[in-house]
């Protein structure tokens, strides 16, 4: 199986600022990847490069195409939500559907209408008459009705309430996703998506600092609640993060054995958010 995305030494400079500092990347089909990083880390730049919205240095192939020069071919098979609330404000809901149906060979009106039926959106409304959340719902319904090989979602649920966010991610996983598809999601609400992700990628200062499957993350990182008596022992194993809860310390370890961990105290698998916070220390310095 060929890689959906293949990057070698991907770089992008804005003047003197290095937004991407030479990224190497291979993403296989059939994955849901969370691209996670603090503001200004290069997430959006990386996504823009993959979608042919910016030029770059280095080698990059998306679905076998050069996204910068073969953007049109790429867009036949890839789709994206680059930012929420970018639907044109003058368009009516039924016109937006008709437009996508007219230009996109992989769009299914039935699917789109089924998704919209779950919302309160009136097909005759103009986008400018919809609430922020409804605009996002419409945009996602349009995009999810496209049978694309690669779907890129940049902060797709900004402005949506938690009920709809949950439902959206469930639909994404259960109805949209299959083995032939690849989904890349960025979001700051990491906790909400970790259960649907197959892979995770942390980006910091224009570099990928962690790239692994969710199973690997669960194996590699462990959180231990340590009483004062074992504190010295715990520190000797070089935890990557420490926080205090009810007088006890919770340490996050990277790559220690389960046995070592269990001797220190009560263990649990950390959430992606915990690992993220520990990994990103000093990101704003």
């Amino acid at each position, binding site marked *: 199986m060929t890689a959906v995305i293949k990057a070698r030494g991907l770089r992008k400079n804005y003047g003197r600022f290095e937004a991407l500092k030479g990224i190497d990347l291979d993403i296989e089909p059939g994955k849901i990847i969370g691209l996670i990083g603090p503001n200004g880390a290069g997430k959006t730049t990386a996504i823009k490069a993959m979608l042919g919205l910016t030029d770059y240095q280095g080698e990059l192939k998306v679905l076998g195409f050069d996204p910068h020069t073969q953007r049109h071919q790429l867009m036949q098979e890839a789709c994206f939500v680059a930012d929420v609330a970018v639907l044109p404000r003058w368009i009516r809901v039924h016109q937006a559907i*008709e437009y996508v149906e007219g230009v996109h060979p992989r769009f299914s009106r039935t699917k789109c209408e089924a998704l919209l039926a779950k919302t309160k959106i009136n097909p005759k409304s103009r986008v400018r008459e919809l609430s922020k959340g409804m605009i996002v719902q419409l945009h996602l319904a349009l995009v999810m009705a496209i049978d694309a090989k690669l779907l890129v979602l940049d902060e797709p649920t900004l402005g949506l309430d938690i009920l709809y966010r949950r439902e959206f991610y469930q639909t994404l996983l259960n109805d949209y996703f299959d083995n032939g598809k690849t989904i890349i999601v960025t979001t700051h609400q990491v906790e909400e998506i970790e259960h649907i992700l197959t892979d995770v990628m942390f980006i910091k200062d224009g570099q990928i600092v962690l790239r692994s499957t969710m199973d690997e993350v669960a194996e590699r990182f462990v959180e231990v609640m340590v009483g004062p008596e074992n504190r010295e022992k715990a520190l000797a194993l070089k935890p990557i993060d420490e926080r205090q809860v009810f007088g006890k310390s919770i340490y996050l370890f990277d790559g220690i054995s389960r046995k070592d961990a269990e001797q220190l105290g009560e263990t649990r698998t950390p959430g992606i958010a915990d690992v993220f916070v520990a990994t990103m220390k000093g990101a704003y310095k």
Partner: protein
Amino acid sequence: MSTFLTLLKREYWENRGGFLWAPIIVISLFTVFTLIGMIAGKVHLGNLPVEMRSLPLDQMIAKLSPEQLQKAMIGWRHALAGFGLIVQMVLGVVLFFYLLSSLHDDRKDRSILFWKSMPVSDFSTLLSKYVSAALVAPLFAWVGVIVLQLIMLVMFSIFFLSNGVQKYTLLWTEADLIGMWIRMFVGIPLNALWALPAYGWLMMVSSWSRSRPFLWAVFAPIGVGLVLTWIDVLSNLQIPQSWYWINMFGRAILGVVPWMFGDGANAIGFNFSSDRGPYDLYSWEAMGSLLGSAHLWIGVVAGLAMLGVAFYFRRYREIAD
């Protein structure tokens, strides 16, 4: 092909106000004002002494020599063509603002990110906007002209009839309606070529400028013209000013108004005089001489070059966050 039709529909949806409603509103207003004028005239006629109220217009018309009748009827043709010009002028204003915002508005409201997420090449996008300006909107205006002329014909027929003129049928038979409509129709693609520099210039500014395309599109050429005047004043260099204003400024800005080639290729606009009226504007001669002139084809090349620049910016420039 269905993709391209969808793109044209998209342009229509966004610009229905300019393409459809602007001509309808102009036609309605003009009809209302004409009606008011006729009623006022009728009332005025009512104030005349009884013996003057029923003018023997029929007999007067019958007494006209064929030449005199011919002249009167040509005057009527000019009037009908003139009604059409009103719609065309409005079309010019609509097109100016349409083209200027065509590649700018969706960058301003960031909806370009949505359009660019669809499998539509930037070339098709540009082409759909050019075709909308060059063919779709003028077709609406063409229908608008026909509607306005028919409304005027009906109104004047009723006006004459109500004043006892039986020969009102001359208004219809001598109007050369079909001929005028055909020439106006053929003029649409010709005008699309002639106006390429204007369309190209406006779309290029629309695609390139980060903000305020209007100021760039209008004041940059005016500025250049003023600089030329300065050079002219300060040195003995004789720069042909009128050449700049006609062939550069005129073609790039005023050329957006349809039928600006009426005075031949090396000019802009149309000089009306006692023996040249609006009806002469829609002539085979004007169109024929235009097709054979280098000015047209040089303009086509310049327009295509500017559209190329517009395409480059649309295709490759990064969308600001």
